[in-house]
């Protein structure tokens, strides 16, 4: 946008250049490495009409030197404003460096990387360099893009980039990362082991049967003491049933009274039932 605007004004400025307009001549750009003598380094001639085709590279220790003679119309003259403006197109940042101009219109500016703001040093693209010359009165001012400056940095020397100041803007979204759910082993393994555990019961019963366990005295016991035996065995079954209910749906307060009742029944009936068993033992039937 700003670029558009300035080009618009520039176009406007050139149309009113009826009387005279500011320009420059004899402009030389020198990139001088550190320690090199005066007058050494690459010299490039600059003209207001045409920017340099290739970007100029400025190394960490190099000094950029720009010399020019400002002219108003045909004659050399000292303008009020003589800036070298560097612009970073990606961030829109601009900074101007003042040319020290003498009475005869000869101006000079020297730049090193130390003079540049940090955003210019880290810029990916080459910086756009323009020369701005203007002054009071009716002469049209000049803003001419003259070259591109490629700031090359030594990758081994770290750059102290200051922390970015706080600006209010939309922040990055955060989505909470949940912990993984607990995992079960593969079902097939579980089923094999569950089957092995379940198979223990028939094995146990089979071993008991093989050792001669039987229920032959059930009729005898039921005829001797039917109620205690029925109640005792029933209460043991009921207790397991209570455990089952507690496991599936009941809470502790439903479980405890039921368990208490069943326990009393088991205690009372158990005494009788076990006396009957004792009688059988004393009779030599066990």
């Amino acid at each position: 946008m700003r670029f558009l605007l300035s080009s618009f004004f520039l176009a406007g400025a050139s149309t009113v250049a009826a009387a005279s307009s500011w320009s420059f001549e004899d402009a030389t750009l020198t990139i001088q490495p550190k320690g090199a003598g005066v007058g050494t380094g690459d010299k490039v001639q600059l003209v207001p009409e045409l920017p340099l085709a290739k970007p100029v590279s400025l190394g960490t220790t190099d000094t950029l030197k720009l010399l020019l003679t400002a002219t108003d119309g045909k004659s050399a003259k000292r303008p009020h404003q003589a800036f070298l403006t560097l612009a970073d197109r990606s961030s829109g940042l601009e900074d101007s460096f003042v040319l020290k101009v003498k009475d005869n219109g000869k101006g000079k500016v020297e730049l090193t990387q130390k003079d540049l703001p940090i955003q210019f040093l880290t810029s990916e693209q080459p910086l756009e360099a323009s020369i701005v010359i203007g002054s009071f009165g009716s002469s049209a001012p000049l803003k001419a893009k003259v070259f591109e400056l490629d700031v090359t940095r030594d990758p081994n020397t770290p750059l102290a980039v200051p922390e970015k100041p706080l600006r209010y803007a939309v922040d990055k979204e955060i989505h909470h990362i949940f912990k993984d759910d607990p995992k079960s082993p593969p079902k097939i393994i579980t089923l094999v082991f569950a089957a092995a555990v379940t198979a223990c019961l028939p094995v146990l019963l089979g071993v008991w049967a093989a050792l001669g366990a039987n229920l032959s005295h059930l009729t005898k016991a039921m005829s001797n003491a039917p109620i205690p035996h029925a109640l005792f065995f029933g209460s043991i079954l009921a207790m397991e049933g209570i455990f089952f209910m507690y496991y599936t749906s009941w809470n502790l307060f439903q479980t405890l009274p039921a368990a208490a009742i069943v326990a009393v029944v088991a205690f009372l009936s158990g005494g009788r039932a076990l006396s009957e068993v004792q009688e059988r033992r004393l009779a030599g039937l066990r």
Partner: protein
Amino acid sequence: MRWLLSLLLLGYLSAVQALSVAGTRLLVVLEDGAEREKYGAFLGDLEARGFHITTEAPKSDSLSLFKHGERTYDHVVLLPCLAKGLGPALSANVLLDFMKKEGNVLVALSSERSTPAAVQSLLLELDIHIPSDKGALVVDHFNYDSTSAADKHDVLLLPYPTTLKTGVTNYFGGDGLIAVPRAVGQTLGNESPLTAPILRAPCTAYSYNPKDEADSAEDPFATGSQLNIVSAMQAHNSARLTVIGSAEMLQNAWFAEKATLSGKAVKTANRDFAEKVSAWAFKEVGVLKVGKLVHYQDEGVSKKVNTSVAIPENNPKIYRIKSDVTFAVEISEYDKTHYVPFVPPEGDAIQLEFSMLSPFHRLNLRPISQTANSTIFGTSFRTPDQHGIFNFRINYRRPFVTNIDEKRQVTVRHFAHDEWPRSWQISGAWVWIAGVWVTVAGWIAFVAVWLWSAPANTVKKTQ
């Protein structure tokens, strides 16, 4: 809670009559009646917009910004005066206290008059820097009015400001050219997020002091777009300070003046721009209001947010971890006469943070629906797997709109003992469950055998 709501309602009703949300009492500090004449159109426009203007001279005895510790004015306009100081009633401290009480200040500077020390230190306090020497002004040899400043180039003709950056609403846009005569340029400190430029100088402009005898600008105060013509500061409490570099911009003489830019005749749009700047400065635009803020456990049924202020928010105080929650908030923006639905600019979003010390979730809110004067923003998310005291927080701070900082605290509890999956639902537990029931069956079988087993014949034979 209810008194708060009725207060809100009252505030809303009174805001319908007045123009500014922040009140209508406006103090204009200027020297005498002749000075007032110069700003007649600007002040007349303000009066037409509903402000009650009191004019005071800077050192007047009756001038006081506070009475019994409360503000006596809602807004202050400081116009440049001939006197060097503003007097004890308008010291930098008093002006800062005025802003701490949410009063708005508009300062107009002039390069022809020295900026009072109180204003200088006020601006310095807020990280806005102006040239320290009297007479420094902004010139631009490219965009000047060749009718009135053919030689001096100190009357700039600038287009309306464009959007500051993506995600920021431009309250100052328009068509036309603004005349900026003899402006005092400002630069903003880099550290503060509270300051923002409203109108920047063009890239070829620079600030210099004509009293310097040097023939060229050797050491300009600032150059290019780092130089602001109009800048703004909005404090944490949303009090606004606006600095206009050129008080002449507000004078009748420049409100619709014929000017020439690069040979083309134009008419200055200062009146419209002055209205836009003062409307922002005195909180007629860019004021956000939070209505109802609701959150609830999402049980698959979408609820409609009841925006009536008569019904309290009635939000749950406690959630379980890993439960689905829906959040909705109603936000309106004041636009000169009434509240309208707030629409965030392109590239911006209102964000909800669900935080305990630091945010666990930060989510962009989507506009769900609109009422006549508010937008309802909402989102759904799952509470994190961390129990504790959390906040639903909306902290919306952007340049040029008032700050929103809303918080609702909730407890996030762990799973209750009966909310875990049952053991049979976990396949890994099947082996142990089988073991338990095999033991039970074995025990019952053992009891039966113990009770009723007859002596085995084989055993007898061996005996």
